[in-house]
């Protein structure tokens, strides 16, 4: 095989692409990873680092559960890089009846999947989580959720995959996929290079939409700006992930910094901007919201705010798997801002698909074909 030919071509060096490369390389497959920007440029490095199962759509829960049970706990040893995974629980704060109802629904969803989640209120809430304000009246607590460091995790998979022989090329933007006798076989880059593989995995975030379009597939995803604030290192306050029904989410990292994001609702209007820029609104809003729920954080000094794109699917869960119409094409797109925690499980599964194995994790509900209107799955819309 020439150096532009491999068993598997992976487009996108985010957490899914890098972990897929790692698991493929581990199986002895020859892998080439092509990335438009640098390693971990997109959403994989730009998220709050929540490693949670709770609060997810039932369709994607199997991936998140597999990741938190079988992958995250052993990653440090496996990769030789500390992804700072800590399974110390997830507290989601609420302050009205509507929030409480929402939490109870999450508890019910979790129970169906065998995940323990509790409602905390009153004295118990204050005793266990003294940092929350009196404004917070109820909270959901999931002890098996946790946090990790998206930066080191994403780069850790890259580092290990590279050590195992996966070839990574950055600054190589894939523009289209070319078919060979009806099967996905070759990718063509903006630099004019072509790469050939037995399987093509597209795990390129929103950028994957255009690539997949080149073989006549349309994935209903759009992009949304997320913005996150990072504070100075502070004395230890909590080990668990903290979020709010009001929309914020985040953690205190092992270095002591607080990292928090928030959904404000106007993120979509920034979609026309070509490079993600920090807006003048969102970080202020994040700070304000968190200040209400965790007053002690008002004194933490922000040293950085950042922004990035997430690829949102219309039904809020990713599209992962083989595409029946185009054999040998495997896609992973539309992670909708919560693809980090299941990311390694996605990579694990993508590698199994690339190796023609039956996946350990049930991803049938994430198939591209669910958007086939003939199938009508109203419960998901």
């Amino acid at each position, binding site marked *: 095989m020439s150096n532009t030919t491999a068993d598997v071509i992976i487009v996108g060096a985010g957490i899914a692409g890098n972990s897929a490369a790692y698991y493929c390389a581990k199986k002895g497959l020859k892998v080439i990873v092509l990335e438009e920007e640098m390693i971990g440029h997109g959403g994989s490095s730009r998220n709050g680092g929540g490693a949670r199962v709770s609060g997810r759509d039932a369709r994607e829960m199997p991936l998140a559960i597999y990741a938190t049970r079988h992958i995250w706990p052993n990653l440090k040893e496996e990769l030789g890089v500390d992804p700072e995974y800590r399974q110390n629980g997830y507290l989601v704060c609420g302050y009205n009846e509507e929030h409480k109802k929402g939490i109870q629904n999450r508890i019910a969803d979790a129970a169906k999947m065998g995940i323990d989640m509790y409602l905390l209120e009153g004295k118990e809430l204050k005793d266990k989580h003294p940092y929350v304000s009196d404004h917070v009246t109820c909270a959901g607590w999931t002890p098996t959720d946790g946090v990790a460091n998206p930066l080191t995790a994403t*780069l850790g998979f890259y580092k290990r995959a590279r050590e195992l022989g996966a*070839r990574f*090329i950055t600054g190589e933007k894939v523009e289209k996929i070319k078919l060979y006798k009806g099967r996905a076989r070759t990718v063509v880059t903006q630099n004019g290079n072509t790469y050939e593989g037995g399987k093509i995995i597209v795990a390129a975030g929103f950028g994957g939409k255009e690539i997949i379009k080149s073989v006549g597939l349309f994935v209903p995803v759009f992009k949304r700006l997320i913005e996150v604030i990072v504070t100075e290192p502070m004395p230890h306050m909590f080990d668990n992930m903290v979020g709010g029904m009001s929309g914020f989410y985040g953690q205190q990292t092992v270095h002591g910094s607080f990292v928090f994001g928030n959904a404000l609702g106007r993120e979509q209007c920034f979609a026309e901007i070509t490079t993600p820029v920090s807006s003048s609104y969102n970080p202020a809003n994040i700070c304000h919201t968190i200040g209400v729920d965790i007053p002690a954080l008002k004194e933490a000094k922000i040293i950085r705010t950042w922004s990035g794109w997430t690829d949102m699917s219309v039904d809020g869960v990713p599209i992962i798997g083989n595409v029946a119409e185009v054999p040998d094409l495997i896609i992973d797109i539309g992670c909708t801002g919560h693809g980090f925690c299941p990311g390694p499980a996605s990579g694990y599964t993508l590698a199994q698909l690339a190796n023609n194995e039956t996946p350990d994790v049930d991803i049938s509900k994430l198939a591209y074909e669910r958007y086939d209107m003939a199938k009508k799955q109203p419960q998901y819309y």
Partner: protein
Amino acid sequence: MSRYLDRSADIGEFIPQPDDDLIICRCEEITKGEIRKAVHLGMWTMTEVKRLIRPGMGLCQGQTCSKHVKGVIAKELHISPAELDDLTARPPMRPVEMGVFGNEVESHE
């Protein structure tokens, strides 16, 4: 799009140097040797090195060390520092308390 980089290209072995203990990033206390090692682990951009081992991620956000980090990485990759992209500049320019940042008020005429 970023510059084309084949991460399998040969940059040679990591060879220890006498000044590997020299602190380069004062805030996060990252040494020259740590940065050089990160390059050999595949971190070939300022941002990747920063994300893996934290130079430039501290309180001053790389205002003091960026130039040196860049120099160390470039030397290890046998390229000119000008070929490396700077870290992305992000607000705020100075550390600002969350309470202050969240206290957004409209400016008026």
